[in-house]
């Protein structure tokens, strides 16, 4: 288990090697990155096995504070400062350690991150070529950034103290900037990269202030000590709430929660495998991970939990409505990610710790699969507008099947992974929160099944779009990786069941306070299953049996209505709902995006600071006597102040 630190370090080590020697190595050094993460994945299994066989008696292990789960800590001191020998708790001393925590949450995230990263990196070997099969000219940089990205994420996951977590957090942000803006010759990726960086950094300010606040109260960055302090009632309720909310600000930025979600759809400008990595396993997962990691802190404050749940719900519902009407395949997936992240936050806010982490994993596999599938489509067709596509299964059967698996899984069709995790979330929300939450969550679940059905049927089924006649399916590197992910998207959910053997099911592995088996609330499970199946049937009828109209989304629905009116009354309802509710809601959210968040929230502070700087600069007039006058005025201020104070 101690060797877990090798997992990120190997990938870190690959970065300079690729940068320095990549040009001279075969495939521009990309095998280095892949080997590093492959070794990391192997080590993960060793660590996992070690952890399963560990007990509280094992060296470095104990029953975790707050979580009550087995937690193993290893650390070496990075630097110490302050008065030598003094106690850290009375603030005379800072001790900062490089340390790692291994607990079920870490294990889960390690597994997800290494696996998805491995898949994505192999996939990229096929994706980052032009149509003649030549590698991208900057493939070495691409893989170096990838390795750095995943190494930072793994560090973040392993960190046992908030400081190291923050460092890794920032590195993740930096890497996302580099990768989203990878094709910086075009203006959109540049802008998108800048936006992602700035928006998340705004959240990061909150995170860092929150960390400092906790430190100033606890006297240590160590998570264990912080949680112990909360447990022992050292911190006041106000401090707990404020610091939890500050941390949540950071999580909102990274996990694209409303109103910080604006960077994520734009981040689609990056290479598609990068999107898969960002959406499934690294950047956006970091926010959810942070809240889960700091769960002892959050759960100690009802206010913070309610805020988390509410923001999560708003995000989930709002993003789902946009996903329903978006026309760009990658953007549909992007809004779907935002929506599902919202669900995870909602679940955390509803004390559904297991459900949230479980959904994070299930969603991660499925979403990586979907993105890689979309990348495959895009790679073959150079097209992203779903209105231009149709019936692609004829030319891309493998991609079609795999994408459908991902869509069904995420849509919540029973037995597939997404079904189980979504059900767990619904149960948690039903148990802990007012009834309005469960109602809206069910609506979100319905929407998410609907937009997945739409994406899947519109693109791959229905009338074949003739212009794609000579399109080929994905190359082997791409289809094999997608296939592996698909296996997980199908079977992973079965972990929710109470299994025989040492693992016993996910509820006994990842838990907060106490393990529990699968909780089934019959009406919830029945209703959500019904909604999901209905949504897919509707999607099939509406999108697959119909060719797609080119008049835009509204037009699509108009034609749907026209054809189906005789048969399905439900279509009219749906049409009405789409027209009146969904469209206006998504228009409203889009307006919030553009007008409020983008112009006021993002550009606003930027513009204000720029204008401020522009105005402020004129105080340096270039005339030396102005400088003297400023000094004299400062002097008067100083003298008067002290003269008053001294009396």
């Amino acid at each position: 288990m101690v060797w877990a630190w090798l997992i990120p370090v190997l990938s870190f080590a690959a970065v300079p090697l690729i940068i320095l020697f990549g040009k001279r190595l075969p495939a521009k050094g990309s095998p280095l990155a892949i080997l590093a993460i492959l070794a990391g994945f192997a080590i993960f299994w060793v660590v996992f096995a070690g952890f399963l066989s560990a007990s509280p008696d094992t060296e470095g292990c104990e029953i975790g504070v707050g979580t009550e789960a087995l937690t193993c800590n290893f650390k070496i001191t990075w630097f110490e400062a302050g008065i030598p020998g003094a106690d850290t708790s009375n603030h005379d001393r800072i001790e900062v350690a490089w340390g790692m925590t291994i607990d079920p949450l870490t294990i889960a995230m390690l597994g997800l991150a290494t696996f998805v990263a491995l898949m994505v990196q192999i996939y990229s070997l096929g994706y980052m070529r032009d149509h003649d099969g030549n590698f991208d000219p900057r493939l070495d940089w691409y893989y170096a950034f990838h390795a750095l990205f995943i190494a930072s994420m793994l560090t973040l996951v392993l960190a046992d103290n908030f400081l190291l977590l923050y460092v890794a957090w920032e590195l993740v942000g930096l890497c996302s900037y580099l990768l989203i803006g990878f094709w910086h010759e075009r203006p959109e990726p540049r802008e998108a990269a800048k936006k992602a960086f700035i928006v998340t950094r705004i959240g990061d300010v909150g995170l860092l202030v929150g960390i400092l606040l906790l430190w100033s109260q606890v006297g240590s960055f160590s998570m264990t000590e912080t949680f112990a302090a909360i447990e022992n009632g050292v911190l006041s309720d106000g401090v707990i709430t404020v610091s939890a909310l500050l941390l949540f600000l950071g999580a909102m930025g990274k996990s694209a929660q409303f109103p910080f979600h604006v960077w994520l759809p734009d981040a689609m400008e990056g290479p598609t495998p990068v999107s898969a990595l960002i959406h499934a396993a690294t950047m956006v997962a970091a926010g959810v991970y942070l809240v889960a990691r700091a769960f002892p802190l959050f759960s100690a404050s009802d206010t913070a939990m309610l805020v988390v749940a509410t923001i999560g719900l708003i995000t989930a519902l709002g993003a789902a409505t946009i996903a329903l009407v978006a026309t760009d395949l990658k953007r549909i997936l992007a809004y779907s990610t935002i929506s599902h992240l919202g669900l995870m936050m909602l679940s955390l806010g509803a004390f559904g710790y297991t459900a949230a982490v479980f959904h994070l994993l299930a969603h991660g596999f499925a979403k990586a699969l979907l993105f890689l599938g979309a990348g495959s489509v895009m790679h073959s067709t150079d097209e992203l507008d779903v209105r231009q596509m149709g019936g692609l299964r004829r030319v891309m059967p493998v991609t079609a099947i795999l994408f459908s698996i991902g869509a069904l899984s995420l849509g919540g069709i029973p037995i597939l992974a997404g079904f189980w995790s979504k059900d767990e979330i619904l149960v948690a929300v039903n148990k802990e929160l007012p009834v309005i939450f469960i109602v809206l969550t069910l609506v979100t679940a319905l929407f998410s099944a609907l937009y997945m059905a739409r994406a899947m049927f519109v693109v791959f089924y229905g009338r074949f779009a003739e212009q794609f006649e000579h399109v080929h399916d994905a190359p082997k590197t791409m289809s094999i990786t997608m296939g592996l992910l698909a296996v997980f998207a199908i079977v992973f959910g079965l972990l929710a069941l109470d299994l025989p053997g040492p693992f016993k099911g996910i509820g006994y592995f990842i838990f907060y306070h106490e393990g529990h088996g699968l909780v089934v609330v019959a009406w919830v499970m029945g209703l959500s299953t019904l909604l999901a199946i209905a949504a897919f049937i509707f999607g099939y009828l509406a999108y697959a049996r119909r060719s797609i109209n080119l008049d835009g989304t509204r037009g699509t629905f108009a034609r749907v209505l026209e054809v189906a009116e005789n048969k399905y009354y439900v279509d009219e309802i749906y049409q009405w709902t789409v027209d009146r509710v969904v469209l206006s809601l998504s228009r409203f959210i889009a307006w919030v995006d553009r007008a409020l968040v983008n112009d006021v929230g993002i550009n606003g502070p930027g513009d204000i600071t720029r204008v401020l700087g522009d105005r402020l600069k004129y105080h340096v007039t270039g005339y030396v006597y102005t400088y003297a006058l400023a000094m004299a005025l400062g002097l008067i201020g100083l003298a008067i102040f002290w003269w008053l104070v001294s009396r």
Partner: protein
Amino acid sequence: MVPLVAFQVLSAALFAIGLYGVMARRSAVLIVMSIELMLNAVNINLIAAASHLDGMGKWANFDGQIIAIFVITVAAAEVGLGMAIILRMYRNRSTVNVDEINLMKW
């Protein structure tokens, strides 16, 4: 007998006059002269204190006079170097007026 405070108020007034000169004059030469006035205010203060504060400090009471010697030294050096820079300025730009010397601003 003139009390210490009279010298001190006089020096404060001279200091303020010099400060006004630095802030209000256009010619760099005049600004340097004004700074000389301020330095003289310092010296008045130091020397007055040196002769009035007998044995108050833990050092010899005439330290003020010694400090004043240093101040005069620095003042002389400042004038010398300042004039050299002003001369160079005049040669490069044909002016020594500080309100015409603002190539660099903002």
